[in-house]
């Protein structure tokens, strides 16, 4: 079992995740990495603070993983979401999906990041040049 769910302060290695996630039937691995933008719709970002509801976030991510694996024909799914202080250019989230074929892997990865932004208890505060703002609603 190469699947994993993790909410953590630490950065991740995509190479390591991709090495663990593959099995004998894996032909395609699609991954999504979310990155802290320096410029978000005109707002100049100095820093991001990510907050989570520990325990519930992991449970919601795990439910999403199960839903995606059933909905698409996926072999393995790993989701890592970072919390704490992040700077522009830093990784925020990794979604990696291994499947026999690429269509399912693309569809599964896109489904997972779309749903993550809707239901998983994670909150993003942008620290700007001139103040701070809680981002509301996935985008």
């Amino acid at each position: 079992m190469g699947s994993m769910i993790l909410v953590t302060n630490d950065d991740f290695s995509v190479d390591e995740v991709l090495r663990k996630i593959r099995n004998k039937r894996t032909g395609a691995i699609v991954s999504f990495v979310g990155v802290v933008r320096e410029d978000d719709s005109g707002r100049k970002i100095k820093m991001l603070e990510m907050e989570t509801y520990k325990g519930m976030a992991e449970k919601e991510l795990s439910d999403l993983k199960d839903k995606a694996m059933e909905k698409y024909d996926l072999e393995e799914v790993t989701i890592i979401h970072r919390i704490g202080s992040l700077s522009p250019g830093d990784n925020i989230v990794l979604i990696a999906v291994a499947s026999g074929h690429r269509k399912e892997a693309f569809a599964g990865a896109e489904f997972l990041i779309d749903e993550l932004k809707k239901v998983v208890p994670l909150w993003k505060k942008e620290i700007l040049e001139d103040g701070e703002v809680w981002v509301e609603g996935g985008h």
Partner: protein
Amino acid sequence: MKVRVKLFASYREIVGQSDMVLELRDGATVQMLVDCLKNRYERLGSLTDVIIASVNKKYARDDVVLSEGDEVALLPPVSGG
């Protein structure tokens, strides 16, 4: 009965604390707890009509009846990813 309340992100900042214990009458629902906090913290009430809540780390509807020792969280619109 006593329930534990957790507050996150903007709600936490408005209320000024992330954790509290509330004393509610038996049979109280999620909606009643939310209304009680909206009354106590004016800015929470004016911020939004609908507040999403969880009970024991599961999303819960307004009409869920609470039990002694439940952990209720008020969840602002999420923005992960």
